[in-house]
């Protein structure tokens, strides 16, 4: 399953939600290296990502779960409602099967555990040609 914009020449737009600013910056830079992707917004908690999703209507949303304020799992259904055409992908440190199952039940299109291959996995899920091969580093 890929997210294809109506205009194939238009890059897929990405909204990144993580309460860690360092992770947001690095993800932005790595995703920005992909020719078919463009990061158009950032959010630091559940409420902010809902507002940004509604405003920007991105093609892809990366959503952290553990955040101060409203957590990602709680916000997930509202994120999906705010941007129904977007593919919302959870990017979390929590790899517990219970958490993964609950996130998928609440509308996540994919689940990636934070780690060395997370960007490669993210690109695969987004459907972008992957410049960082999983497991190559």
């Amino acid at each position, binding site marked *: 399953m890929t997210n294809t914009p109506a205009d194939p020449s238009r890059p897929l737009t990405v909204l990144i939600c993580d309460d*860690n600013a*360092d*992770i947001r910056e*690095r*993800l932005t*830079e*790595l995703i920005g290296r992909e020719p078919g992707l463009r990061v158009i917004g950032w959010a630091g908690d559940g409420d902010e990502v809902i507002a940004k999703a509604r405003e920007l209507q991105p093609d892809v949303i990366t959503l952290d*779960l*553990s*955040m*101060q*304020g*409203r*957590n*990602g*799992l*709680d916000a997930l259904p509202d994120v999906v409602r705010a941007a129904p055409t977007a593919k919302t992908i959870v990017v979390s*440190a*929590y*790899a*517990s099967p*219970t*958490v993964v199952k*609950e996130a998928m039940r609440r509308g996540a299109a994919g689940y990636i*555990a*934070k*780690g*060395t*291959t*997370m*960007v490669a996995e993210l690109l695969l899920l987004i459907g972008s040609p992957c410049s*960082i091969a999983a497991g190559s*580093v």
Partner: protein
Amino acid sequence: MSQRERAALAPLAWGRARRRAGVVPRPVAGQVKRAMAAQNPSSRLRVLVANQRPHRLALLSRVIEGLGHQIVAQEVVVEAVGPDTARVRPDVALVGLGADPAHAHELISAIVREAFCPVIALIPDYDADWIEEAARRGIFAYIVDARPEEIQSAIDIALGRFVEYATLKGAFEQRDLALQEQLGLLRTRQRLLVEVQDGILQQLTTVTLGLQLGQLAEPLAATGRAIELAKSIVTQTIDDLLVSGSTLDEILDGSSFER
């Protein structure tokens, strides 16, 4: 079965029946103290008597008064016995089996719902099914074909057991309270642990993303192993929290850490 054995049902059956009904009242120190005082054979007890047959009720009341106790309520109808029990708060209640066995059961239920005292059933003949149902509804003892001295003996036994039961129940409640406190501390500790471990993962993730930008393969692989180790710890801890009753939301947003 001896008179005394017949006179007393197992206190545990009484407790189970009341717990199943979900109406176990909290033992109140004053009430237990009063029940303990009532154990003294010379004590004048406040007794509630109930029977569907008025003439049997009057007879029983005379017997009880003849034993030196005070009748605080005489009940015939089910609708009145509950409110009256709550109002007079007897030391002991005696329920006689009238014409309709079900009516006596209803009387027992109504008294047990409102009273913190032993309820004793008086029956003309041994009837296992009726006694079983009465025990389920909360009687503490029963007497078959009672004579006055047997009634006094049954009251003494029932009150003694009732005090033992109340004391034991209080001890169990204290133990449950201590266990709940320990569980609360354990949950707090585990949630703090998740917070710290999550911080480690976030830091390692930051490092690994930076390394990817610099294409430094070896440090990245080492970081990856560290993340996998830390991840397994977090996963295990979350599962432990879920098992112990925390919700995912409590774990994820950290709101419960400050409680």
